[in-house]
């Protein structure tokens, strides 16, 4: 078939249908015909017609306008051309109002109808090309909802592809709001476990005992209220992936239990005596420095190495500022449609302000800022004034609540933080702390802080 655009002709007169179809077939189109509205709608449900010619007057069943409305309901993209033997202004207006693309009076000149068909199909072709290009463009930046053109993030996305089908445990590190769960999802949904469950557990949200029964399930009578056996998240994730968020917050006992699951792939339900076997890939995430926690004895070293088979470090948003415009545009499109508000985009001054902001809450904070701006925006485009409050926020000194700890502990934390920020560079860390290198070495020794260059 020369042209990949099927056409439907709906008319109760067989001669009309057949002759019109024959004429269009000479032009290379695939043409189907329907003797009434019902049949026409049925065919439209099954095939995506580029054009539907529908006769206005069909004595039995649905008339032309009803048929057109029903076709447009099932195929909003279809162009309907209403055919009539008598031109009346009222019906023409009604047909166009209800969404007819054109209205033609039969018999018409072959040139008229040929031009009409090619005009509509030209438009269809452009629309479909546009959709394809949009998809291509979207694919360029998106990867399971991760939007980036930052080289480090792109490297991470490549890594997620490479490791997607392995069973190895992954540890994702990054500040809050950097998209640790999105990366975990990207790993899961790109691999051979994609069809199986992806189960999320936030370890910080639950107390030790609750988290234990949440992870491993429990047997009937294991504790008050355990009226029936319940499967835990590990069992639910069997064959798939379990994502343990905020792993740095789990208790020493659970660390031990977790280690056992990772080593042996089996565990006991709370109150149970029968081992349960699972095949769940573990992806853990934390915003803490687990190596440091290990050093301080707060996190089991063996568990750390079990988890840290593949490590992914997500950069904070302030280190990938080139993504801010992309992310902002994406959030504007998504949130404005979710909120049903027509916002066409962001002005350059507003974008400048967003790029300049430091984003301690990372991508999540950006998302919230865009949502707040959309809610308060009144002129169809996000302008500087819609996000101007960010500027005041930046000027205000961060409120720092002094923790109730000994002064030495504060000093220790300040040194650890400075070293982390400067990737273990002693010269830079000492400069940041305002002390000289020898003093820093002295303090490292005193607080037993390990460092690496």
């Amino acid at each position, binding site marked *: 078939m*020369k042209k990949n655009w099927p056409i439907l002709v709906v008319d109760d*007169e067989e*001669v*009309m249908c*057949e*002759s*019109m179809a*024959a*004429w269009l*077939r*000479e*032009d*290379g189109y695939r043409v189907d015909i329907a003797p009434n509205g019902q049949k026409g709608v049925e065919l439209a449900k099954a095939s995506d017609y580029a054009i539907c010619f529908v006769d206005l007057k069909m004595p039995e069943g649905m008339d032309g306008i009803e048929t057109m409305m029903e076709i447009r309901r099932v195929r909003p993209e279809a162009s309907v051309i209403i*055919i009539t033997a008598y031109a009346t202004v009222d019906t023409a207006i009604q047909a166009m109002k209800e969404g007819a693309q054109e209205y033609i009076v*039969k*018999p*018409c*000149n*072959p*040139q008229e*109808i*040929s031009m009409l068909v090619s005009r509509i199909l030209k438009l269809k072709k452009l629309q479909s090309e546009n959709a394809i290009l949009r998809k291509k463009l979207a694919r360029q930046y998106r990867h399971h909802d991760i939007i980036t053109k930052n080289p480090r993030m792109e490297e991470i996305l490549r890594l997620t592809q490479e490791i997607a089908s392995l069973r190895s445990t992954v540890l994702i590190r990054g500040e809050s709001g950097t998209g640790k769960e999105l990366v975990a999802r990207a790993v899961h949904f790109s691999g051979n476990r994609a069809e199986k469950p992806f189960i999320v557990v936030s370890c910080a949200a639950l107390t030790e005992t609750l988290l234990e029964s949440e992870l491993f399930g429990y047997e009937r009578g294991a504790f008050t209220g355990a009226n029936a056996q319940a499967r835990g998240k590990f069992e639910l994730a069997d064959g798939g992936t379990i994502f343990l968020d905020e792993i740095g917050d789990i208790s020493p006992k659970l660390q031990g239990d977790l280690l056992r699951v990772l080593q042996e792939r089996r565990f006991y339900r709370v109150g149970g005596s029968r081992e349960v076997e699972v095949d769940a890939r573990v992806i853990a995430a934390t915003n803490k420095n687990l190596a440091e926690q290990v050093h301080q004895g707060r996190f089991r070293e063996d568990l750390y190495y079990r988890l840290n088979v593949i490590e992914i470090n997500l950069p904070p948003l302030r280190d990938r500022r080139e993504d801010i415009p992309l992310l902002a545009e994406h959030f504007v499109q998504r949130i404005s449609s979710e909120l049903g508000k027509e916002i066409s985009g962001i002005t350059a001054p507003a974008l400048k302000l967003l790029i300049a902001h430091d984003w301690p809450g990372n991508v999540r904070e950006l998302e919230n800022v865009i949502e707040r701006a959309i809610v308060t925006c009144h002129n169809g485009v996000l302008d500087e004034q819609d996000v101007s409050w960010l500027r005041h926020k930046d000027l205000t000194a961060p409120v720092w609540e002094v923790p109730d700890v000994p002064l030495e502990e504060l000093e220790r934390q300040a040194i650890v933080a400075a070293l982390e920020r400067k990737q273990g560079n002693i010269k830079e860390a000492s400069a940041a702390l305002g002390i000289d290198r020898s003093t820093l070495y002295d303090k490292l020794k005193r607080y037993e802080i390990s460092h690496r260059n």
Partner: protein
Amino acid sequence: MKTLYLVAMGDVPKQVMEWIEHAAAEWLPVAIRRLEARVIPERAYDPKRKQYQSVEMMKMLAEMLPPDSCRLLGVTDVDLAIPMLSFLFGQAQVDGPVALISVCRLRQEFYGLRADEDVLRSRVVKEVLHELGHTFGLVHCDDPKCAMSLATHIQRVDEKDEQYCAQCGLQLLKRFSSQEAEVS
């Protein structure tokens, strides 16, 4: 070898039938024979439009298809139409055995001009190549000079050459070399 049959529907000048026979013989490697002229049935006439319904005439052609025929081309001098369109130069079944052309609108006289035999012959040849091309599976060609290009008015017919473009010609040739010309 199967045969392409030509049949006049109503009065058609002998010379027109000869032009057609000539043109077909030049392009198609089939035997060509003429059937006796037929009378156009009354039921094909639409008194409101003062035209003949092409669909009825195509039906009549389909009914008279000789058993040894590969294609049957009807030729008429009456003005053809279908319900949707105000006129037709001709009609064909794409990849089917039957086609029909009308000489009526190919004549200069139809447009109030003096009769011109050369012009008429040229237009008849183009229409014959066009409709027979359809019966051998060709659809409209984008090359305006090709006989298979769509003509919705007489000027467009005059712009065409009395031949197929290279691509359509080749497609036709392939069709015959693979012996697909037979219509089951």
